[in-house]
């Protein structure tokens, strides 16, 4: 929608549509219960929302979004609006039904190590130490052993986990686990970092400290970040631009540029500044209509 013409788009969604057909969805759900195939091939999420168990549906329809290189973009939307589907599409874990997704001008055809994903559930290998988990991605791209260890240590240091290299995930707090996951995604040096509600499972204090940490890492590494959240404050605090999505089918309703640039550096408590409140309210208003519409639809869906 609000195309940034001054910089070339690193990521470009063009009229992206994603349907989950009825039969496949039902089949996928059955497969998911029995075997491996669905979580492997799919998104790890139930493809059909509970309100419409029998109907196929359109998760995304006509999504247009251009993200310039090095930008921190946050996508915020009501639950079930397809924001995670958006991320899965960019990650190459699912294919769009219509439209196209370009990364550096080339269509996304499958998963790849040029995009790093940080999951809400951390997805750490419990049998590996923090160090081993960070090295996991490096093994995938064939970094020699010695270099792997050095790089893993460097990235653990970047996320503030020096001294915790030998801990297993169960010996780390939720925040520390997510730091390990972030270090893992950064270690193989992807251009783009995709974050799927990474801080949703954390308590408020940990979340705030990790948000600051993430901004610091982003400034230091200059990665392009696409961050999915349902938290309005989180969106305003982190994003250079916040893309607000409509409820079913998901579409980009508006992209709000957040002009808190100079204040970020100076303001002591950014979240209580009037500008922050203004942005927060603006996005809240945009979302509010969508949330009530989604609830209305859900009610109707149940009534029918």
């Amino acid at each position, binding site marked *: 929608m609000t195309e940034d013409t001054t910089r070339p788009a690193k990521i470009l969604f063009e009229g992206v549509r994603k349907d989950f057909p009825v039969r496949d969805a039902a089949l996928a759900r059955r497969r998911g219960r029995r*075997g491996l195939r669905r*979580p492997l091939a799919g998104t790890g999420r139930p493809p059909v929302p509970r309100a419409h168990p029998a109907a196929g549906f359109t998760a995304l329809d006509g999504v247009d979004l251009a993200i310039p290189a090095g930008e921190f973009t946050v996508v915020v939307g009501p639950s079930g609006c397809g924001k995670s589907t958006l991320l899965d599409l960019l990650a190459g874990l699912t294919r769009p039904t219509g439209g196209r997704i370009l990364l550096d001008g080339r269509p996304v055809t499958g998963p790849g190590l040029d995009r790093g994903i940080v999951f809400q559930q951390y997805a750490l290998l419990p049998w590996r130490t923090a160090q081993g988990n960070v090295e996991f991605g490096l093994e995938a791209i064939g970094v020699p052993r010695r270099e792997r260890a050095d790089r893993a240590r460097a990235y653990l240091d970047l996320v503030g986990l020096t*001294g915790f290299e030998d801990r297993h995930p169960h010996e780390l707090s939720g925040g520390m686990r997510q730091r390990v996951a972030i270090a893992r995604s950064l270690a193989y040096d992807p251009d783009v970092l995709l974050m799927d509600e990474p801080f949703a499972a954390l308590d408020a204090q940990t979340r705030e400290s990790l948000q600051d940490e993430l901004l610091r890492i982003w400034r230091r590494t200059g990665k392009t970040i696409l961050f999915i959240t349902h938290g309005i404050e989180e969106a305003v605090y982190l994003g250079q631009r916040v893309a607000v999505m409509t409820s079913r089918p998901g579409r980009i309703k508006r992209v709000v540029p957040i002009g808190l640039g100079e204040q970020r550096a100076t303001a002591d408590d950014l979240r209580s500044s009037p500008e922050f409140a203004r942005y927060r309210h603006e996005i809240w208003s945009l979302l509010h209509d969508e949330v009530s519409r989604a609830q209305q639809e859900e009610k109707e869906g149940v009534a029918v």
Partner: protein
Amino acid sequence: MSPVSATSPLSTGKAPGKATGKPTRKATGKPPGTAVGPEPAERDVPAPGPVRQPDPVPDPGPVSVQKDPEAAEGPEAATGRLAPGAAARFAGAAVSLLYRGFTRSVAVTALLAVWEAAPRLGLVDATFLPPFSEVALAWWELALDGQLADNTAASLTRSLSGFGLAVLAAVPLGLLIGWYRPLAELLNPLLEVFRNTAALALLPVFVLLLGIGETSKISIVFYACAWPILLNTISAVRTVDPTLLRLARSMDLSAPRLFQKVILPASVPTVFTGIRLAGAVSILVLVAAEMIGAKAGLGYLINASQYNFAIPQMYAGIVTISVIGVVFNGLLVALERRLTSWRLPPTH
């Protein structure tokens, strides 16, 4: 095992016959109490100096354990001595070890006391349930004249061969079936049929086809052990955390890599549950098989003793089998703990 069994001299005084099972639990049971909690800081500010988890296994250093071949079998197991200098260092630990040893052995001791008292007080017929001391004496005599060793060796050879072959065959097969869903769907009805057929019901078939020699006994143990391992391995592969698979997929991992780096390690705990079940099954089935047609083995010893009305000897055989079962399970648990030390102390 060896650093762990070093603690056994402290506990064996209180807990005879449980030398192998106990100390391992003791060693691994320690971390929840003493270890650093998983959430040292909710505020999530990593301290510069890491808090090291204390080594759960006590330093074996000066303690020496005599490796006595007889010790593994008999209830009067593991004899060891403590170097004099080490005593002070272990003083604190010794008290808690003794306490643990006491709590763990009190029920068994009570059972033995009842066993001893009931026949002597005339509560049960001493002919059919001789006091424990008589059974122990009979056991000792069997041990001295070599009968016990011969029969135990015969039983262990059969049960370990069957069990080992089952592990070697069922784990790879289970991984394969769990991984290739079409294969699983094809074989599933068959698996259900065999799983629900008691292995011992097939014993006559095995005897018919393979005779009453070693082959049929090892085969029936193999057969009975294969099912728990196979089914657990299949379910292990299928229940790997989907998030991990999603991660692997997002990294574009090749199928062999995915298998090696994610599926296999993630499956270890569930596979081991099957292996432990199979361990118990191997002894259970073997004893039954030996009661039907055998010239040696603990099942034969028990059965023959009953025929000859050597009742204390019969109980001696039964006690030996339960001790072997406990020891075998203890070994498998210790191995499992070692391989899955990355798990949370209480499972999830």
